[in-house]
């Protein structure tokens, strides 16, 4: 697997590269600004781009903009956006560019190296992973629309874990229930949210996320 890293702080750029290389992910290019990122993506055609939100020249959100542009040029291009702070607003904008192959995480999460590398692989494979902080924020809106209000507390919890990109087994482990119970919750969520059943785990997450986007 080949990745391109865009991060303007050399310390963090090297750290990320080191972590990826240690887990057999090839770092095809590591750049420090959006222009170089666009060039590297064009040249390397990587399996995933890992992009910092704040980069030169204005040090605001050009990383986010670059990620969305990259996905406009190459639809479905997997992008994992990292940031020192997360905003629901940005998560929504990112998801509007298509909900497949999208990740949005606090940089803090990189310290859980195993999980971070899993996330990189998941996003490269077309999965969707949102930071728990974003998910928590999204779920505080449950009162906002009636469909979400129909979910039980337990079901909302399951939905949150799904949005973080966790598998059924992982959710079962987290909630200390059986996988079968999780299955039951998920089916119930789909019923209540009027979403068609689908065998593919990832698609279900995407469907839920799309729903969350349109509140």
């Amino acid at each position, binding site marked *: 697997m080949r990745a391109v890293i865009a991060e303007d702080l050399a310390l963090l750029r090297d750290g990320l590269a080191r972590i990826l290389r240690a887990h057999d992910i090839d770092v095809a290019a590591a750049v420090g600004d959006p222009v170089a990122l666009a060039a590297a993506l064009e040249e390397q055609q990587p399996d995933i781009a890992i992009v910092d939100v*704040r980069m030169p020249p*204005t040090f*605001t*959100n050009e990383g986010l903009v670059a990620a969305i542009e990259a996905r406009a040029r190459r639809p479905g291009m997997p992008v994992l956006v990292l940031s*020192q*702070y997360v*905003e*629901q*607003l*940005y998560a*929504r904008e990112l998801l509007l560019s298509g909900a497949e192959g999208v990740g949005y995480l606090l940089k*803090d999460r990189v*310290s859980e190296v195993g999980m971070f590398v899993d996330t990189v692989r998941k996003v490269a494979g077309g999965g969707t992973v949102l930071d728990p902080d974003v998910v928590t*924020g999204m779920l*505080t*809106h449950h*009162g*906002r629309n009636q469909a979400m209000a129909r979910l039980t507390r337990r079901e909302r919890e399951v939905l949150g874990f799904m949005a973080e990109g966790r598998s059924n087994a992982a959710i079962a482990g987290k909630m200390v229930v059986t996988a079968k119970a999780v299955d039951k919750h998920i089916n119930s969520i789909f019923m209540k949210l009027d979403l068609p059943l689908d065998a593919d785990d990832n698609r279900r997450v995407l469907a839920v996320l799309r729903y969350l986007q349109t509140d």
Partner: protein
Amino acid sequence: MAYRREMAREDADRAALRDVNWRMILRLEASISVGIGLLMLIIWALAGARHFWPAWVWFGLAIPLALQVAIRRGLRAPKGHRLLAAHGAITCVLASILLAIWLLAGARHAFWPVWPILGLGVVLVGHAWVRHALPTAREQALADRVEVLTRTRRGALDVQAAELQRIERDLHDGAQARLVSVAMNLGLAEELLSKDPQSLTELLAEARSSTLTALADLRTVMRGIQPPVLADRGLEGAIRALALDLAVPVTVGGEIPGRVPVPVESAAYFTVCECLANVVKHSGALQARVDVGYRGGVLSVAVRDDGVGGASLAAGSGLRGVARRLEVFDGTMTLTSPAGGPTVVTMEVPCELSSPRT
């Protein structure tokens, strides 16, 4: 700016032209007067040069000229003193007229002009005294302004000092304390590396979790100083982002056609934060609405909710604090919150927009 300078020059040109016109008219008038005066002198001489009556004609001709010159002089005084100067000039002319009449009449009678001249003098002195003792409207406005500036400056410094104190305390009790504990754990880990490698895992995990908490603390502090999304997206975008994070549904409407100056942006943003925090905490509202707009050089933001009302500036020091931040920019904040609701907080801040950042 260039336009304004152009305007000023046109004004000056017009004034100069007026001046020239006036001089010409005065000169013409003076020549005609001298002509008439000479003519009268000739007639008097031809008529036998008895009682010298042309002096009266000269006197009559001189009055309008003298009055014109006097008023003109008075009006040329610096702004704010013109009225008094014109008054003074006219007084002089009137006194001269009275004197002239007395003289022309042969100066035989008692010196009666002393009384009217005294009266005129008293009126002039009275005028001068009133001018001196009472400030003009302009001076009054300036004095009021100084008072406002003094008050708001003190308020701004108080707010700033309190903010710095809060930030210091947050950093001290939060991130700094966590980093101290990380350093302690790592120090211990270093020692245990040779003695008891088994217990290392736990220490390292604890160090990592402390680091993460320190990061979260730092994020909270930074949001309190200047939320990154405000720099990223400006006031409108930051309010939209804020609205998404709240438990009460908040609709954001309106548009700002450009970028608000950073200090105003920050003050307005934290005012909205405070208002929405109050909505969530105290109002019991089911929904809220924020409207932003910019018209006629004034940024306006209105926050309304459908809660229970009864809010006041006195009750919550939070709102008072943000109102003081707005005052520094000559901004105003009004709160209407009848018991039973709805509560509406409106703020208006005069400012100039810059073009939107791309």
